[in-house]
């Protein structure tokens, strides 16, 4: 990322699209090799392999015990193992494997989580909403630790759908740029572990999940509000309850003309137009239900290291409200980070992260 490289490539894969397409795809052989260290990859779907890899890594570096009655597992995904749908009845994993609750149950058993897992499927805000939900359950005293994994795969199902919307970019996506023409899909998995008490052994312990709100545009199911209404309401409620100085905004920044324009309007309406903003979508595309988790992990990295990443693909402002887009990486001390996301169904979310 510091070298401003992107993982988005032109792919030719007739099994998932009739024509070449741009996407950021996890190397299948590399995934199998990594997964083989944990278990036999043949017994797991691509989605499950990605999720288990990320969770295995995160849990091995955390003090949290999945078997503890105070630990909850949350899975954030839009489509789970949707690639099984093509042969729903005769796929080798069985007909029920496609269910999101079943994916979460399988992961629960794999890591021996004691409690029944939660699945959050809230379009593109799923990941941030899952972190917000986890934080709320902890502050309400209902959980001590919440392990949150976000995963989605690139599939023909989703590619064909976004293609029919004409929302896919003709090259790697260019968030907030004048020439942006759509999003690039990506796949991936990310995990965050929230805990009531800070870990001594882990430097992540000095970040606190602050206020957060989600809000609906109540306007259109597939297009963002022209006035940024829902996102503005979410940010505004957050800042009213927690009036801090925001040092950095990690935007949704998909690279579609409407989304990026809407975010610029909402950020300006909230009075945050001078705050540095970036989008991570130019590096590994839009990972849907994983996006909010992976991007929050990158926010945590930026807060620890003081490296604010640039917006890959951005050259020239292409939005009507001039917000402060970070083009290239720079050093910045970040105490308060605002993570935002928006998605189909008119949903929006804003979440604050504090460094203590």
């Amino acid at each position, binding site marked *: 990322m510091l070298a401003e490289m992107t993982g988005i490539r032109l792919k030719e894969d007739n099994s998932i699209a009739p024509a070449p397409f741009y996407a950021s795809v996890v190397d299948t052989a590399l995934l199998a090799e990594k997964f083989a260290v944990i278990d036999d990859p043949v017994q797991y779907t691509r989605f499950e392999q990605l999720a288990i890899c990320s969770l295995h890594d995160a849990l091995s570096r955390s003090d949290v015990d999945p078997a503890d009655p105070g630990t909850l597992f949350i899975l954030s995904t839009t489509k789970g193992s949707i690639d099984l*749908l093509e042969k729903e009845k005769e796929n080798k994993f069985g007909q029920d494997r496609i*269910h999101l609750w079943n994916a979460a149950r399988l992961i629960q058993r794999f890591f021996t989580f004691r409690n029944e897992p939660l699945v959050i499927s809230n379009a593109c805000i799923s990941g941030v909403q899952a972190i917000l939900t986890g934080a709320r359950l902890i502050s309400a005293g209902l959980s001590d630790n919440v392990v949150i994994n976000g995963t989605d795969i690139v599939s023909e199902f989703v590619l064909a759908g976004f293609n*029919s919307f004409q929302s896919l970019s003709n090259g790697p996506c260019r968030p907030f740029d004048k020439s942006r023409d759509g999003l690039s899909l990506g796949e991936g998995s990310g995990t965050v572990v929230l805990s009531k008490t800070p870990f001594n052994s882990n430097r992540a312990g000095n970040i606190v999940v602050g206020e957060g709100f989600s809000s609906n545009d109540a306007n259109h*199911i597939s297009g963002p509000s022209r006035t940024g209404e829902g996102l503005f309401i979410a940010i505004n409620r957050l800042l009213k309850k927690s009036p801090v100085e925001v040092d950095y905004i990690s935007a949704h920044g998909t690279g579609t003309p409407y989304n990026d324009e809407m975010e610029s309007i909402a950020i300006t309406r909230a009075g945050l137009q001078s705050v540095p903003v970036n989008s991570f979508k130019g590096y590994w595309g839009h990972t849907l239900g994983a996006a909010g988790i992976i991007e929050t992990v990158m926010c945590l990295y930026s807060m620890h290291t003081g490296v604010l990443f640039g917006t890959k693909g951005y050259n020239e402002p292409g939005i009507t409200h001039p917000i402060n887009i970070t083009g290239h990486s720079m050093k910045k001390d970040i105490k308060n980070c605002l993570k935002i996301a928006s*998605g*189909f169904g008119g949903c929006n979310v804003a979440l604050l992260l504090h460094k203590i």
Partner: protein
Amino acid sequence: MKKSCIISHYCQIRDHAVIGDDETLYERCGADLSDFFTGIYQHFDISYPKFYKMDNLCKLGFLSVELLLMDRNIQQRYAGHEVGIILMNASSSLDNDRHHQQTILDRSAYFPSPAVFVYTLPNIVIGEICIRHKFTGEGTFFVRERFDPLFLFNYVNQLFYQDVVQCCIAGWVETLGDYYDSTVYLIEKTGKPDAGITIFEPDTIKHIFAKEK
């Protein structure tokens, strides 16, 4: 001592019938799912043409909330951002996912459509309800193997106590193939609980869900 919330109303659509607050509001045996949903729409004289574009999950959620809120003046009593919608089911949007999958199965007859694809997310039903009633508050869609009254209670309760919502529509909206089952609750804050009022607690949520017509 924190004040209790109440279940001020509920609506249930299952087994060819619509139940609202213990009363059978509509019944139509023998109809298939599509005719049954259209029958409800027409019987209650609902005028909202977008209904016909919705997938079955959205139709079921839309109708359940429509009848839950009929004549309740929710829009007059609460600001849009004060009303939250928390829904859950087991099959996510699988019912409509199959529909979208049909459009891409055959490369020689490849016709994916945005009008179908947009419904391949379960939270779209929350979006449809928000558009209809101008609700701009909290919205989350959970997927669970079975309806879980304790989880619903815990999650919605903390939304009230953390002042995220002043009013909440919550419940179960499940449809897959010919199967449909919904129970939605209208949950509001109240002062001292009076006799005859249904307190919002795991047992009452469970009791209503387990009712048979």
